[in-house]
């Protein structure tokens, strides 16, 4: 039987405001426990929340970028449940009137573009963090009250891969908007998944499970792969799927049921009486809209059109805004976008990965990169030299022209200067000479390689080739 997987994702995003959503405490990550707290975010009796307008503005930014309809009136609700990391034992959230609804985000699958609908976007406060010890638990409330944006998709994804693509596309948009660090390891971006299985063609959704505790996009994909298989196996065996919350076990790569005690809540939502409704002014929203940069999708299309990049190259480059900006600067300076893209996705990307840095911190001004590329174009240096030169430029921060001069790396095309190296190569590799004479044309390439080695990559390979052929012909 043929099955269809149905997936919806809930993403929790810490907004990168300086202060918390309902008090003035700092949101810095990594400070000593409970040093960024006050009576409000500790939920002390008598304290009252006051809305941080910036968090609402950032939320609206996301909502607009995801093509959502923004609510005319912003209200908050209390979500009531007991847990030690929740100091008031209720969370200020939004229930029936979220910040925004009905948006859409496009993903690109192997086959085509696909629209994933966004159900709702709402603002809420984060909880504290528990640290369990042998026979006690500790609580750090630094995180309590950090603004969280919850972005809920419709169940529009039909494979773990699509879920992965959705998360990547969403993260890319969020990074463009500069609203969050989007760091899953630090918890500034968290994701829960709802997944169910139905027979292909069925209209009704199957029984879903909710998967929590995934701490990377790859983890989400792996968890959903396991869970979809588990559900299909159950259906194949004629068994029923139980609606439940399951936790992803990262070590074992499986999902396991959460103890039922910790779920099944009646959250008793009701309007938060400590906050007054907030109304967006039209021009306030217009200003937010104006401040939104070109987003990955339109940028990708533009790069394909303006710079003749392949779909793949364009997608890779625009997935990170800094990379896209960097590419565009270099492409304009140098004039050959394809060459820039190759270097960016090849040697530069490899260097960054190796050294664990991002493009923002890369010590390579677009002017330097394009300068170096121009030296290749004009034959001043060889492509091979350029590869080592690139690393040198980054490490020393020196101008490529200067560096080439200083180290004497210019390409050697002068026959007189190459003569010795060519003669030596021929003398030392008589076997290749014989091979060539016996009709093995390739043997000349080996000799070119020897000359390159002797000149430390500086010889003009075409010239050397020419010279060798001349010499070997004469020797025939």
């Amino acid at each position, binding site marked *: 039987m043929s099955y269809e997987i149905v997936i919806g994702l809930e993403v929790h995003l810490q907004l990168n405001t300086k202060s918390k959503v309902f008090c003035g405490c700092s949101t810095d990550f990594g400070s000593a426990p409970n040093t960024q707290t006050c009576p409000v975010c500790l939920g002390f*009796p008598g304290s*009252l929340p006051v809305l941080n307008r910036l968090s609402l503005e950032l939320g609206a930014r996301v909502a607009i970028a995801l093509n959502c309809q923004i609510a005319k009136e912003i209200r908050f609700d209390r979500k009531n449940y007991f847990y030690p990391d929740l100091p008031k034992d209720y969370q200020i959230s939004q229930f029936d009137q979220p910040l925004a609804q009905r948006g859409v985000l496009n993903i690109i699958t192997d086959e085509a573009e696909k629209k994933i609908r966004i159900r709702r976007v709402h603002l809420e406060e984060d909880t504290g963090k528990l640290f369990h010890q042998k026979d006690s638990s500790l609580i750090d409330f630094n995180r309590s009250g950090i603004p969280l944006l919850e972005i809920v998709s419709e169940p529009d994804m039909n494979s773990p891969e699509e879920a992965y693509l959705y998360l990547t596309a969403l993260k890319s948009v969020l990074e463009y908007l500069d609203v969050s660090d989007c760091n899953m390891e630090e918890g500034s971006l968290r994701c829960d998944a709802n997944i169910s299985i139905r027979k292909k063609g069925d209209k009704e959704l199957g029984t879903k499970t909710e998967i929590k505790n995934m701490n990377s996009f790859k983890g989400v994909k792996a968890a959903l792969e396991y869970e979809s298989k588990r559900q299909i196996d159950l259906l194949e065996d004629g068994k029923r799927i139980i609606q439940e919350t399951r936790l992803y076990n990262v070590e074992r790569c499986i999902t396991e049921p959460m103890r039922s005690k910790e779920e099944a809540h009646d959250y008793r939502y009701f309007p938060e*009486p400590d906050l007054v409704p907030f109304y967006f002014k039209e021009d306030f929203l217009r200003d937010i809209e104006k401040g939104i940069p070109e987003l990955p999708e339109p940028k990708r299309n533009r790069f394909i059109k303006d710079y003749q990049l392949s779909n793949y190259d364009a997608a890779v480059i625009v997935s990170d805004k800094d990379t896209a900006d960097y590419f565009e600067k270099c492409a304009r300076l140098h004039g050959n976008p394809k060459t820039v893209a190759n270097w960016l996705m090849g040697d530069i990307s490899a260097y960054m990965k190796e050294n664990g840095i991002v493009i923002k911190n890369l010590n390579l001004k677009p002017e330097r990169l394009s300068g170096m590329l121009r030296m290749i174009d004009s034959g001043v240096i060889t492509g091979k030299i350029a590869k080592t030169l690139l690393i040198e430029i980054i490490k020393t921060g020196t101008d490529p022209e200067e560096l080439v001069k200083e180290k004497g790396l210019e390409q050697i095309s002068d026959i007189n200067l190459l003569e010795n190296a060519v003669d030596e190569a021929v003398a030392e590799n008589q076997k290749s000479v014989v091979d060539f004479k016996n009709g093995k044309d390739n043997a000349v390439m080996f000799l070119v390689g020897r000359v390159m080695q002797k000149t430390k990559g500086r010889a003009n390979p075409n010239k050397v080739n020419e010279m060798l052929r001349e010499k070997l012909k004469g020797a025939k």
Partner: protein
Amino acid sequence: MELNTLTAHNLADLLKKGDISPIDICNNIIDKIEKTENKLCALAHFDKEKALERCGNLDKAAEKNLLWGIPFFIKDNICVKDELTTCSSRILKNFKPPYNATVIGKLTDLGAVLMGKTNMDEFAFGSSTETSCYGPTRNPWDTERIPGGSSGGSAAAVAGDEAIFALGSDTGGSIRQPASLCGVVGLKPTYGRVSRYGLIAFASSLDQIGPITKDVEDAAILLKAISGHDEMDSTSADVLVPDYLSGMKKSVKGLKIGVPKEYFIEGMDKEVKDSLKIAIDKLEKLGAVCEDMSLPHTEYAVSVYYLVATAEASSNLARFDGVQYGLRADNVKSMMDMYKKTRKEGFGDEAKRRIILGTFALSSGYYDAYYAKALKVRTLIKTDFDEAFQKFDAIVTPTSPTAAFKIGEKTRDPLTMYLSDIFTISANLAGIPGISIPCGFTKNNLPIGLQILGKPFDEEMILRIAYNYEQNTDWHKRKPKL
């Protein structure tokens, strides 16, 4: 002279003349407390050394203020930094907040001297101050009787001259009803007039802090002192605070005052009814035009209140869970066990009753029938007042259907107890201001109160009617024999 028997504005005059010093007032208060507090149980926390020390450390620079050097008490649900603030509940035993309520800062900045905390119904749940973990407060007019509640400690302390004035909080009548039963003045401001920051919440959409005083002039001074927008409280309104002292002295001639028929019900004390009639006559003699009218949704007020208030309370009181502060039960086996035992040991019966009621009203499957419907009816009650104030400048009613009842008389029957707030609840639901002033005594020498309700943010009007009435009667001059 017994300075403790005087009003704040009397004392301010004497201080200005240099006849007395703040320490003199403080000493008189301490003497009185030492004499009568064992009979009244009006105070929750009082440390005379600390009170004297504060008196001695007064900032001379603030001397020009009317409240400079005047001692005061506050209800035990208003936070004072590093001082016990327990809401008269075991669950907050030993709790000392790390911050001051906004009203505390406002009063002490003016040079008023904080003396201590007054007793109250646990978490303000009650109309008799019998649910306090410190035992019931007694009415100074008859110590066998309750002082009203939940700000019964504040009202009894002021009426019994243990305090010059006190702050209370009013969620459904908790300032006005005890003021009425103790024969003093109690003012509940418009919702949003006074910052709630630092008031331990009972029902956030209804709570307001207000003064309990010996006369209307003091109420006007205090209201001015504690009012105004506070950036720490989003629900506090950015509305101009007028000069009540001059505004209240205008005549009441020509003012239109409504007398709602729904506030003269069967089962209310005949003596209360008769006193009200006489009070209304008095207002007419002073030139006001009193007219019968109707607030048709009044009968639903108590039901609506006990759904809205308990729903909010169930959520507001969730934080008392033993995790960070207050009581944590010993010998617990698990997290759930800690929650259950702590709350079982920490809360009294009435608190438990209201938490259960409110939790129920918000529960899935019941929400629409109870909480959501209550909100709708609340809007209707508010609309009643909006319409009435199109025609009337103010509304007068009895504050309470009866005078003070006996201790223990209603504790077994919560519903009867809830009905003692029947005339005060609507003002909280509608968010409008109300004041209770003495307007007579029963044969048993128990005070009766007149309630005056006004338009939102028009406290000036109710103070004006109250002041004119008071200046032409002597009820406020009577003192209980303790």
